């Protein structure tokens, strides 16, 4: 899925996958921060959004 979205022009850093066990609270905190930073760096999403206000 990541490959195909990247192929059509959605930045790969918008989609993240991870494995975290229920005991790994710290890894969760770390990953959550990383994901947020990665998406923040990309700026707002532009594509694939259905905005009926714009087309209406």
């Amino acid at each position, binding site marked *: 899925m990541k490959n195909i979205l990247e192929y059509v022009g959605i930045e790969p850093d918008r989609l993240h996958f991870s494995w975290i066990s229920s005991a790994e609270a710290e890894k969760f905190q770390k990953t959550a921060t990383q994901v947020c930073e990665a998406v923040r760096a990309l700026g707002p999403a532009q594509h694939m959004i*259905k*905005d*009926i*206000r714009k*087309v*209406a």
Partner: protein
Amino acid sequence: MADKILAKDKLAEFIAALQKDKDVFAPKLDNDRLVWAPLEKADDIVWEFSNTEMSPKDFFFPQTECMMHFKNDPKAEDGMIMQAEPELAKERALLNIRPCDAKAFGVLDMIFCQDEMTNDVYWRDKREKTLLIGLACNDPCPTCFCTTVGCGPHNEAGLDVLLVDLGDKLLARPISDKGAKALSALPEAAADDAAKAAELKKAAEDSITQGVGTDKISGAEVLDLFNLPMWDRVHESCLNCGTCTFCCPTCHCFDIQDEVQGEAGRRVRNWDYCMSWLFTVHGTGHNPRHGKKERVRQRFMHKFKYIPLKRGGEIGCVGCGRCVQLCPVNIDVREVVNSMNA
């Protein structure tokens, strides 16, 4: 109303006059595909063409059309109240529309605007504000069969003006008052121009050799046609895609959807097609047209039996041949109708 003459070197003036208060559209070649596009100047007009790939019905009945909008908030004072969409702001003219497509609008007028109760404001608004300037077909395609379904390459029904290409000039025949007004500045045609146009008409009509027979269909009982054994075979190769309905100038079914996003809400209608399983499925899960056979039968029965039955004999097909050309499995409407008529 007398025929007029429009010399091709006077076209620029004619188009400019139209453009004063109208948006003008005409068929245009785009990457080997003939599509409808805004016309900027007379030199861009294509004169030699069979017909556009898709029918121009989306000028009046867009594939997706917003019908009304509302504020999606039941508590707000103006919430959940439908607000009308603005009407078409500027008049339009469709130049070089083929007679078959214009006739199709006439058929759809009968369906969209039947009486006070059945009066589609979206369709009517756009129809009233559009001038149809037709271009007669002098060289019909092998897939055309208009002459056998009550239409023809020089058919005038539905048009405001019919143009006939006479080489360096066009015979312009006013058909409606609106059309006469648009042609008022032009000189009258000589008798031999009209005679030449009549000759071209005869030649074009004669060149259509393949067609459909509908004489027996009109006399037959609905149920007898409905139960014909031929339906068991016709549908076999059908994919149940929407190609035939979407390219068809007279197919007019739609599906209404409400869409919301936060506070914004709108009601849209989209083209729908009777070939689809979803078209008839009920909320219970029951589907009265559950198989391919039922769906394929519906399309042909609708055009060639139900519409004529309800609309005074008018056939719901204009013989443009688009479905013959585009069907991915080449289900040929001419073959199907002829076996219905057998």
